[in-house]
């Protein structure tokens, strides 16, 4: 199994009265709330943590893209990846991912990822995402076109990476008469592609068809199981069984010396992540057209699900949405979840909400020393 250290780069200091005053930390949370002095500290601190993960032997270090948000402060993930590419040695530099359909010029992503591939000597993983619903509000793009634009931008980027001659692109959303991207990537034919899914059948099928790595987003274990089963079933329909490493489980992880201490400390950070960071109304998460009618109907038929804000810390732990505990307990939880879900990679979020640096580092160290080695070469149980 592979272990990757995932960073959201959250803005860690929200006002005391955040809950009463603000509907969300994204889209409309005023930029005046951003203190540049905090910014300069945390950007550098977070990069230190990602670099340290490489030193500790994590297989991958991961960044992602969000816009106009205190939840995640990486509008340009490739900049973070560039900073990491030159200062790390072994870990895959995973951009999970670029929101390709939000770009007016998606070839910029093809160019930047190819550059990163060279800077990192072939360690780049290229994630592609559609962007969260509210990112269609702040990009002035219709969510109705979300999937179309994603698919077209994807096809364009892949063709740009794999063509050796200039070509023309006459798409519905993009039109270029001269596509001839320099540089081409180092990895042949191109870096591995990872795509997150949140229940959409279209995405499962898409990943299975293209043999891309399918990643989960934060959700209760039975829900994630449904997604992973869906991906495996889609692959089965195509006549193959996906390598477990093509299934990546995203989960916040917090480790301390004892189980009690871990829970005592983690509670506030986990609540910060789910109650403040992910505080967002359905109207901005699921704007019209963002989800296909069949996926929405499937979701509604599955019955009501508590929103993050309605889940207490205990609910979140019970639902399997975080892994918290002593090294021993975390070993057990990983073992159990792996047995249940059948993933071959973990995308571990260890800077949960406003967790201070020292505690992030402790989680990283304890996990790297006392947990990861037990799973490195163990086969995923069938």
């Amino acid at each position, binding site marked *: 199994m592979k272990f990757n250290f995932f960073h959201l780069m959250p803005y860690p200091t929200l006002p005391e009265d955040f809950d009463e005053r603000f509907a969300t930390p994204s889209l409309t949370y005023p930029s005046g709330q951003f203190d540049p002095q905090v910014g300069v500290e945390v950007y550098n601190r977070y990069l230190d943590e990602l670099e340290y993960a490489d030193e500790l032997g994590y297989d991958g270090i991961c960044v992602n893209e969000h816009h106009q948000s205190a939840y995640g402060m990486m509008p340009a993930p490739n900049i973070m990846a560039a900073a990491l590419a030159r200062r790390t040695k072994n870990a895959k530099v995973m951009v999970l991912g670029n929101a390709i359909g939000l770009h007016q010029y998606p070839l910029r992503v093809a160019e930047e990822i190819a550059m990163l591939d060279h800077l990192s000597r072939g360690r780049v993983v290229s994630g592609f995402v559609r962007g969260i619903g509210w990112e269609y509000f702040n990009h002035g*793009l*219709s969510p109705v076109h979300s999937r179309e634009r994603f698919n077209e931008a994807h096809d364009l980027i892949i063709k740009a990476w794999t063509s050796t001659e200039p070509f023309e692109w006459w798409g519905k959303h993009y039109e270029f008469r001269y596509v001839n991207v320099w540089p081409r990537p180092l990895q042949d034919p191109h870096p591995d592609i990872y795509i997150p899914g949140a229940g959409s059948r279209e995405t499962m099928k898409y990943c299975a068809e293209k043999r891309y790595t399918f990643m989960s987003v934060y959700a209760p274990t039975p829900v994630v199981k449904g997604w992973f089963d869906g991906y495996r079933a889609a692959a089965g329909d195509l006549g193959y069984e996906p390598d477990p490493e093509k299934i990546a489980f995203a989960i916040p992880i917090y480790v301390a010396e004892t189980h009690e201490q871990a829970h005592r400390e983690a509670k506030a950070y986990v609540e910060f992540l789910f109650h403040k960071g992910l505080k967002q*109304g359905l*109207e901005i998460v699921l*704007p*019209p*057209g963002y989800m296909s*009618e069949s996926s*929405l109907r499937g979701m509604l*038929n599955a019955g009501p699900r508590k929103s993050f804000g309605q889940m207490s810390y205990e609910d979140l732990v019970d639902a399997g949405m975080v892994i918290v505990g002593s090294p021993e307990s975390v070993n057990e939880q990983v073992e159990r979840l792996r047995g249940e879900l059948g993933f071959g990679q973990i995308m571990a979020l260890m800077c949960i909400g406003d967790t201070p640096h020292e505690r992030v580092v402790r989680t990283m160290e304890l996990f790297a020393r006392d947990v990861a080695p037990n799973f490195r070469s163990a086969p995923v149980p069938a």
Partner: protein
Amino acid sequence: MTTSASEPGVDVRTERLQVGAGEIRLLRAGSGPALLFLHAAGGGGWTPFLDGLSRHFDVLAPDHPGFDESEQTDEMEGVDDLVYHYLRLLDLLGIEQAVVVGASLGGWIAAELAVHSPHRVARLVLLSPAGLRMPEAPPADLFIVPPERIVATLFHDPAAAEGLFPAEPGVDDIMRIYRNNTAFARYAWRPFLNDPKLERRLYRVTSPTLVLWPDDDKVIPRAHAERYVERIADARLEVIEDCGHALYGEKPEDITAAVLAFANGGTR
């Protein structure tokens, strides 16, 4: 808003018509000169407001492609496509000229239709129409209004909304709303509820025009109604008191009376 209620005695016929690549639902009642009603973003269907009109007109109430019982097709991407769609529908039905009444999103379509083919429009009624680009007085962003605030946004008196929305929406209710909102987003997300070129083309509208604006419209500012009246040669503004943007959803009798008083001027 859900809408299939009609008064006793009004015989509303449901027709399924192939228009271009897609099939649409057309609701039709009454006799007399043709009146094409273009519904707002909340959706189509039949309403008591149309009952009133059908006593004087052959009322045609189609669902826009993508809304309610009309198919969404790839060729319907913007309000310009809807204009061609409705010209095609009029051709198909053999209607040379109609009174065209449009509300909000439908008002925008109606105005564009009258700009494109002024001779097809006998009289034009715009109920708090969208469509103009007015950065100094933009419409409210209906896409970001949380469901629990929709009624307060659309109505002057929320009590008037009772019965128009399902109290405990089921899966099908939510799907209907989502589908209508998706169609709305397809036509109006960007440019947001406007065609930047519409205003400078309004000189083409030749029909007598009535613009109705409800005095408690929290979606479209009064400046839009005034601008339409300013730019259309033969237009006047009438303000409906104590009424929200829902217009015919909130005060069907008042709106029917105002539209009839104007539209009964007859076909030229």
